[in-house]
């Protein structure tokens, strides 16, 4: 008798908050999937990835706010590392620090630059990711200034991919708001 009474008194989360959590989890799984897909797909160079998983971060930023986007970005790097098998290796350290840096730059620019579009946020994130990646590799692993010779051409490439990801995220969020009406 008492147990049934107690069980009815457990506070249930509201349907709205549950729906929000489910949406966030769905986005997290999508982002992790894209992260793993990118790791195994052939790329243009060993220092370079398209950053498709960042599209999901941008969508979360647009539709759920900064907190959800930040936890999503960190979550997908950790979950992705389990699947690729790079947990606690140099690859993981570079990936996590660069993601932390680029996500904070993206959130700050989204919050403080008036009327910035998703493309602008994505460009800022791509450039911050590339720069922080080089700083981490130079400081922790290679320790030679010659490494920075690679940076300028890669910054140009990351401008292109940053724009592409921003445009894709804008298109996807526009489609999502049309469908959800």
């Amino acid at each position, binding site marked *: 008798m008492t147990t049934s009474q107690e069980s009815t008194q457990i506070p249930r989360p509201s349907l709205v908050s549950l729906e929000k959590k489910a949406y966030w989890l769905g986005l997290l799984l999508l982002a992790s999937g894209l992260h793993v897909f990118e790791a195994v797909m052939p790329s243009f160079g*060993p220092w370079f990835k398209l950053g498709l998983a960042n599209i999901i971060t941008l969508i979360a930023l647009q539709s759920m706010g900064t907190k959800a986007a930040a936890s999503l970005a960190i979550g997908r790097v950790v979950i992705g590392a389990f699947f690729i098998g*790079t947990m606690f*290796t140099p690859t993981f350290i570079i990936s996590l620090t660069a993601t932390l840096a680029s996500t904070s730059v993206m959130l700050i620019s989204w919050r403080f630059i008036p009327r910035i579009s998703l493309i602008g946020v994505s460009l800022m994130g791509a450039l911050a990711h590339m720069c922080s990646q080089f700083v981490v590799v130079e400081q922790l*692993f290679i320790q030679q200034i*010659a*490494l920075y010779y690679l940076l300028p051409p890669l910054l140009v490439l990351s401008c292109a991919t940053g724009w592409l990801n921003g445009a894709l995220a804008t298109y996807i969020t526009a489609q999502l708001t049309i469908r959800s009406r």
Partner: protein
Amino acid sequence: MVHIYHGKSLLATYPLHPKTPIHFEAQGDIGLVEITIDSEGVRISHSSCATKRCVLSGHRHRVGDILACVPNRILVSIQGTQKLALDAISE
């Protein structure tokens, strides 16, 4: 000249276009990295790392080009006084 570094220390220096191919085995943090310098340029032919991104980088032959194996902390850098191809833009 091809300079091979492990972290901050210089391991070896070789000419970029040797008459006979040079194989150099560099001791990295987690194992050996085999660097080959031949008529096509310099490349990392074998590495003990997991991702093999250094091997996938292929050949490098221009001044200013670098090859790196991050888990082993090995850097191969081509240095010289010869003019870079891209410098013409800034002139």
